[in-house]
């Protein structure tokens, strides 16, 4: 494997995983907050749906996604109308698959992080004239920051490693949708373990670099 080839795969993977983290992250944080703070009807149902991608084998997720994105489904047709082409077999599909898989992880971490913020502090902020969104932005978010950041990075790591669902909806088109996880799979199946482990190292690096950066960043913030 040449260096540019490896770098290409790494860059593509980064793009896919970052997009996935973004797609999953925002609703996951919101949902995590809602789960930690509110009681609402249908909460158990929501929790069930959130857990789904955890419990299913990735092929099943892939299949469901394939169904969603296919021309047979309204969502698939809507996407096609919006993007001018089907999302299947593009890196967007890979990002979507990774997002689905990362979603429960981030949601769970966010729920845990928000639940650890003392209600009392949120309440004091409210007496100081902060309404719901203000309290969220100025109290809950900063106090949960560490947990949220780690949760998000955790989701990012999971997105990096996503394989089953991704390969189903995105194919494994070198240079287009072949992420590190897919490339590692291919190398292993072709008995090129050396290359596979090298790519695994790259993958690990991608996963840990932001974690390390975050650690340093958070430490600074604490001084």
């Amino acid at each position, binding site marked *: 494997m040449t260096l540019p080839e490896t770098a290409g795969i790494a860059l593509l993977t980064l793009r896919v995983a970052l997009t996935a983290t973004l797609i999953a992250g925002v609703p996951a944080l919101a949902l995590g907050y809602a789960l930690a703070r509110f009681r609402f009807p249908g909460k158990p149902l929501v929790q069930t749906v959130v857990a789904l991608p955890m419990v299913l084998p990735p092929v099943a997720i*892939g*299949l469901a996604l*394939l*169904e969603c*994105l*296919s*021309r*047979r489904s309204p969502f698939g047709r809507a996407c096609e109308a919006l993007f001018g082409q*089907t999302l*299947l*077999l593009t890196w967007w599909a890979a990002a979507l698959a990774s997002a689905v898989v990362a979603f429960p992880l981030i949601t769970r971490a966010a729920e845990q992080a928000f639940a650890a913020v003392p209600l009392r502090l949120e309440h004091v902020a409210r007496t100081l004239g902060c309404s719901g969104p203000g309290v969220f932005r100025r109290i809950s978010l900063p106090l949960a920051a560490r947990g949220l950041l780690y949760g998000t990075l955790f989701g990012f790591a999971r997105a990096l490693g996503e394989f089953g669902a991704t*390969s*189903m*909806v995105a*194919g*494994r*088109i*070198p240079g287009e949708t*072949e992420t590190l996880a897919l490339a590692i*799979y*291919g190398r292993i*199946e*072709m*008995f090129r373990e050396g290359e596979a482990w090298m790519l695994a190292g790259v993958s690990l690096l991608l996963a840990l670099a932001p974690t390390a950066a975050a650690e340093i960043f958070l430490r600074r913030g604490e001084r």
Partner: protein
Amino acid sequence: SRPLPRAVRVGAASSLREALMPSATGFDARNIPVSVNMTFEASSTLSRQVEAGAEYDVVLCADAESLDRLGSRVVETTRRVFLTNRLALLGPQGTLALDGIPATTKVAIAGPEVPAGKAWRKYLEGSGRLAGLEARFVIADSVRAALALFESGAVDYTLVYATDAKAAKRAHAAWTPPDGPVTEYVAAVVAGRDSAEARTFVGWLGSAGFQEDARKRGFGIPPK
């Protein structure tokens, strides 16, 4: 050679699923002279598992190479080709041929590590078409995954086995290259797991009853 009759543990290539486990309730045990426990994996995984010491009694691979890699880990004398398969191109209904695939459409194919993918590539290369098609390949990690892409409409063409053509639910046409290679399914007893039951099972694979049944599902029968 064992005191108690026990289930023969069989590791089979994924594409044999239709031949070996056709019914919803699984295996039709009445036809098999021994009790069997069956698992389906990619052929490469099977050979890897046997290499690692996994205790299969019999392995059924979709290519000879996977067995070749195992060398003395299989009992050479028990090796036999028991079914064959043909390559197939699936596409939209109508007349269909490799050269008729529109120049820009994507084509789903299993990875080169999968016997079907390998066989297709070899054939395309031999017939000088690989270069033209390769850039448009969508690589799936199994023949089934390639088929799923075809079914979902993500691709309109896929390169699979003839047996898969029967399983696809999407309305389609199938074309088998007349000059295409014949894939051979090879069975062998794993070294150290040799037993009368294992040999009986391998023998059964060559029985007319089984082979006729498999033929109905699109498999070919090797010349005796």
